[in-house]
């Protein structure tokens, strides 16, 4: 890395160095990776399952993948809420440091990730509710069917689900690029998310 950039990123207020000293709890690390695996599985499996025949009395190919998709999505809402709680708790205990522009961008990326994750899951659930299909969480608990079937609202929330998911994928790509940046620099920032 050019010396001038190194100066800018590492010495300016020493905040990257301060970040490396922060230790994340095992709960935060496990939650992060559980959410990561779930999100990638949801993306990959949804691209495949939308290529299955439309549901009817004869064709039930979509039943298992859609139920699984909804189950993981609903579970994700709870995981993300816990994650936000853990993060707020962690922030409270953190010593105040001046943030550089890049760190502020990283904060924005995290915030956007949380907002989009919740938006994706909630819009997906609402779309499903208005479609008239029932949701049984992990094939155990019948989720309350609080909405009447409504095609217009189903299409609206389905569109919101689609676009928030694409936005989430873009934000995740930025998040991974930033993680690789730290990994290739070996600047220790990355290590806090890998140390259980």
């Amino acid at each position, binding site marked *: 890395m050019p010396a001038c950039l190194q100066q800018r990123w590492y010495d300016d207020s020493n905040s990257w160095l301060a970040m490396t000293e922060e230790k994340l709890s095992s709960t935060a690390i496990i939650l992060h*990776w559980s959410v*990561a*695996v779930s999100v*990638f*599985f949801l*993306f*990959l*499996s949804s691209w*495949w*399952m*939308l*290529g*299955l*025949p*439309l549901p*009817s*009395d*004869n*064709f*039930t*190919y979509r039943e*298992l*993948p859609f139920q*699984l998709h909804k189950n993981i999505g609903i579970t994700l809402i709870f995981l993300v809420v816990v994650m936000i709680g853990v993060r707020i708790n962690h922030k409270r205990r953190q010593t105040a440091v001046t943030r550089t522009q890049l760190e502020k961008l990283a904060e924005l990326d995290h915030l956007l990730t949380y907002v989009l994750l919740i938006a994706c899951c909630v819009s997906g659930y609402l779309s499903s509710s208005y479609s008239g299909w029932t949701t049984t969480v992990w094939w155990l608990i019948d989720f309350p069917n609080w909405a009447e079937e409504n*095609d217009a609202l*189903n*299409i609206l929330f*389905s569109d919101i689900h689609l676009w928030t998911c694409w936005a989430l994928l873009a934000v995740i790509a930025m998040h*991974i690029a930033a*993680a*690789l940046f730290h*990994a*290739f620099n*070996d600047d220790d920032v*990355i*290590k806090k998310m*890998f*140390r*259980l």
Partner: protein
Amino acid sequence: MENQHGANRGSDFNPTWLGVVAVLFGVLLFASQGTELLKQLVIVPGTAAELGIAADCRPDELEEEGLSLQECQLLLSSVQISLASSPGWFRPVQIFLSLSSSLAAILSVAVGMALVADRRGPATLAVPVFGLLILLDCAGFIAVLNTGPLLRAQYLWPALLWFFIHACLFTAALVRRQQQLASDD
């Protein structure tokens, strides 16, 4: 002088990037193999697609999904293609390989984390774990090679990509291991 310079460059190996890349691809592989497992559990021989029943394409559903009538009919054809081009042995083999690869992906995530944390013990497992992933890629490639052209078109290219990704990780882990052994002597 040259040797000295070379030795210095060798000792600069950064296990962090190897660990992070291993974790990233481990997560992606787990998601990919999970989807493959789901595919094999859903597209089962003897189901409606094989019975010659016409696709049910209601206009309201087509509008909801943003599909044309022809696309809707072809959704059924894609399942028929999968079923017709899979030999009897293919489904159990794919289920076994998906489960094994998912397990190996979890191991690769664990090994990647150990590499980032610079834990020597678990990090020594990097070579066998990435080696196992290469073996599973080869087994998957050979399995698909023995099916028809339709499945080959679907599976061979991703299998080849995964093979090269795991070959890169394996080679890097091997270099890391050799350096560790050299520094021990």
